[in-house]
């Protein structure tokens, strides 16, 4: 469904942030992009939705196609119309609007007001917490509620594919569980998901397939079950050794430093 082939992304004609990555997100599946800070995960999502152009970035080579249609450097509105929605990192609610106004903005492409109402009812029944908060100014919601809101807002567009950037960032463990339970229900409903995460454990728990990025390149890929048992992933992203014991942070830092040095 979504296919990236040898995609390169450059910011300001100078900084090469993504260096020829290829990945595939099949229909109805959940794919995760893992990796540390600065690996190029968020830039990859921004390149697909093409909001990267607001940061003076662009796809300089390779192709991005969705459902067989090229979408690289396409107008962001056309990308959303084509069925891809991008939930950006950092719970970017429209802070001065109410919860319901945020949701209505998400469904702005609906054909009629009745359609918007039907979508709102669907979101409220799926995320009951938002129904109770619908008249609240979204800037004053808790972090978890804001995360649920931005996912709900994305769902208002009735997308075929939701790309979500760091959904667990800065949330309490219970809230992370609630957010991922929602994502699982979306997956069960047939929505395709591309999740960027640093929380490898929760990401591999929901994903069917995963890619690991470092320094703008994909360095590892495989079925989620294989990645979960992969020695490197366990060691560097789950913080476990082969016996399942937690490694000390100093060991990991030492290895990373060594790896960066050798790389």
């Amino acid at each position, binding site marked *: 469904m979504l296919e990236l082939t040898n995609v390169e992304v450059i910011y300001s004609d100078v900084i090469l942030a993504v260096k020829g990555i290829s990945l595939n997100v099949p229909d109805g599946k959940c794919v995760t992009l893992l990796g540390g800070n600065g690996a190029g995960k968020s830039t990859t999502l921004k390149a697909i939705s093409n909001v990267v152009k607001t940061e003076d970035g662009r796809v300089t080579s390779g192709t991005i196609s969705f459902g067989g249609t090229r979408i690289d450097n396409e107008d962001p509105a056309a990308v959303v119309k084509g069925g891809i*929605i991008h939930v*950006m990192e950092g719970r970017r609610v429209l802070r*001065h609007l109410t919860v319901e106004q945020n949701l209505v903005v998400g469904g702005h492409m609906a054909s009629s007001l009745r359609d918007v109402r039907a979508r709102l009812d669907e979101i409220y029944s799926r995320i009951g917490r938002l129904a109770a908060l619908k008249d609240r100014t979204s*800037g004053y919601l808790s972090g978890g509620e804001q995360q649920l809101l931005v996912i709900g807002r994305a769902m208002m567009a009735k997308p075929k594919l939701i790309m979500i950037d760091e959904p667990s960032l800065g949330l309490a463990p219970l809230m992370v569980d609630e957010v991922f339970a929602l994502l699982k229900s979306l997956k069960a409903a047939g929505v395709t998901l591309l999740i960027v995460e640093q929380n490898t454990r929760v990401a591999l728990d929901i994903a069917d397939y995963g890619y690991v990025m470092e320094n703008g390149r994909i360095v590892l890929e495989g079925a989620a079950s294989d990645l979960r048992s992969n020695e490197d992933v366990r060691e560097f992203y789950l913080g476990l050794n082969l016996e399942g014991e937690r490694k000390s942070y100093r060991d990991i830092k030492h290895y990373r430093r060594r790896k960066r040095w050798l790389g």
Partner: protein
Amino acid sequence: MIDFLNYLINGALVGLLYALVAMGFIVIYRASKVFNFAQGELVVFGGFIVWWMVLAMGMPLAVGLPLAFVAAAVFGLLIERIFFSRLVGESVFAMVMVTIGLLILIRGLVLVLFGAQVRPFPIIFPLKPVIFGDILIPRSLLFGAILTIIVGLGLSWFFNRTRPGLRMTAVAEDHQVAMSLGISVKRSIAFAWILGALLSTLGAIIYLSGKSLSFLASDIGLAALPVALLAGFESIAGVLLAGLIVGIIQGLVTAYVDPAVGGAVGTVFPFVIMLFILFVRPTGMFGWKTIERV
């Protein structure tokens, strides 16, 4: 007492006229985060279009006025297409500099297109004032105030209750998020400039009806600035209340303080209020406060 009421009511009506022009500032600021220094010049340009349609071309008001609004809308769109569509993503400073350039350009354009002479503005509203007992109210200001309230409440409803309006409000909040939701930021900014030009032309019609038309009319852009600041640059409905406050204070100061000190305090006083607002509450009475979660 009657004098006081006269000053109060006329001050309030003038304040609502300022509010109408301030709405032009606010609509453009919300969409593009640009403070348009050329707002007063847009009023002058709108005024000259009306003069050209109605007096120079001899069209009846019923034809000339709608055509003037169409021409103003096209002019607003052209400004966005030629200058601001290329500046999306550039610094606010660059955009503000462009609005200063626009101010000079519009002045030159008016000179080239309509000449340097002072022109008579058509009488849109009857000159005979409305009289309630001992209170005299200029008809243009009365009708203008009613129109301003209708337009202000209409725009407030549009931006908060309708889907196209909420799209524009989303653009006002965060360009990148709006784009990620499939909203065309450029289209929203273009619409804001069209709306800004239309509001300016309406302001010109109310302000200039039966008066003479020259570049001095652009001063109303400056007079509307304290109103926009008092309201906060995001609130459309708030600008009505801010207009009333500034207009009434200006009217009363002009009536009671000016004679005692030899004049001009009434003109300056709104700017004193503006400075005070900037010190005490930079976001204005109804502007968006920065919401930070801690």
